[in-house]
């Protein structure tokens, strides 16, 4: 196996051709990684609400069926809301992708091993829930394939296995009201 993927490089490659993708991120390093690719109004960063990222993606994807929505989150955040994988599969949404950056640890709290360090297989869980396309990638070619697949019309769940270890923090805005209003304005939603 080749060297483990650098999370920043992996997310940069994932979002390089993002065009007008709507992106929601799980709290912690996933938010910093997406912010490091350049802050933009179509990014919605969670700074809390752990376990909620995938469902924010579902609500958004159902609301905007003409747009592609991608949720970028970590293994710990996904593990806290595993039921969402069943809920989203049953909802039958076509325009949502979930990408889990799996470093097999809780990076924000001291790098304690997460369940994926003990071989819990998130892609297999998604597959068992009925997700049409499920992948686990651990190399650059896989990430490039995933970057293209994000734009295809089908639900997609992918795990990117990344190297453990923290990167310099790139902090996006953390005022939820600001992020929400900016996002809605970008979508042309009229405010009263």
């Amino acid at each position, binding site marked *: 196996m080749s060297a483990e993927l650098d999370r920043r490089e992996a997310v940069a490659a994932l979002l390089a051709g993002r065009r007008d993708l709507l992106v929601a991120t799980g709290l912690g390093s996933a938010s910093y990684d997406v912010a490091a690719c350049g802050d933009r109004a179509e990014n919605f960063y969670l700074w809390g609400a*752990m376990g909620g990222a995938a469902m924010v993606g579902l609500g958004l994807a159902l609301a905007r069926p003409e747009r592609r929505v991608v949720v970028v989150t970590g293994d710990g955040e996904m593990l806290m809301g595993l039921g969402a994988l069943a809920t989203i599969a049953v909802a039958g949404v076509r325009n949502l992708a979930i990408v889990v950056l799996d470093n097999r640890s809780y990076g924000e709290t001291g790098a304690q091993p997460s369940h994926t360090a003990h071989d819990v297989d998130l892609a297999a869980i998604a597959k068992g829930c009925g997700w049409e396309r499920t992948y686990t990638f651990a190399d650059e070619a896989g990430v490039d394939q995933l970057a293209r697949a994000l734009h295809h019309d089908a639900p997609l769940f992918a795990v990117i296995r990344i190297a453990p270890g923290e990167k310099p923090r790139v902090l996006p805005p953390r005022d939820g009201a600001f992020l929400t209003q900016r996002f809605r304005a970008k979508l042309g939603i009229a405010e009263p």
Partner: protein
Amino acid sequence: MNTPDWPDQVFAALKRAEVRQIAYVPDAGHARLITRAHEDPSLRAVVLTTEEEGIALATGAWLGGVRAALLMQSSGVGNCINMLSLPANCRAPLLMLVTMRGEWGEFNPWQVPMGQATAPVLRAAGVIVHRATEAGEVAPMVAAAAALAYDSRVSVAVLLSQSLIGAKQFVTKGATP
């Protein structure tokens, strides 16, 4: 069994409020509303595995310019607490309709702690709480709660009293333990 028409009136109130997503964890008290939601092609009815999923769904819907409402039983309120920080921080609306257990003629003691804690816990988390006890007040209260939530962008819960729903019957008469 009588079939009160307030659930249909509540459904009409949600439609008038332009709700487009209805998320729920199944509950007998919401059964009629859930059926109506699934039958209506202009709505997306989303069944959840746990109630806090619906809080995140509603905020995501709002990001996309759509109004969502969330149906649950009082036991589910406890599952929601940390997730309530999401609409609060984002100044996104949240409308919750909560059927109460653990208060009026409750048979199951396991329902009582969360039922008794529901209103104070919601208030502690910053949710505005309304409570309906008469069939005739439910739909107007839901309409007002919807206006409050979506226009003022706050979290509002309408508690539907157990006396309204009726205490759940588990056993036939004469089976007193």
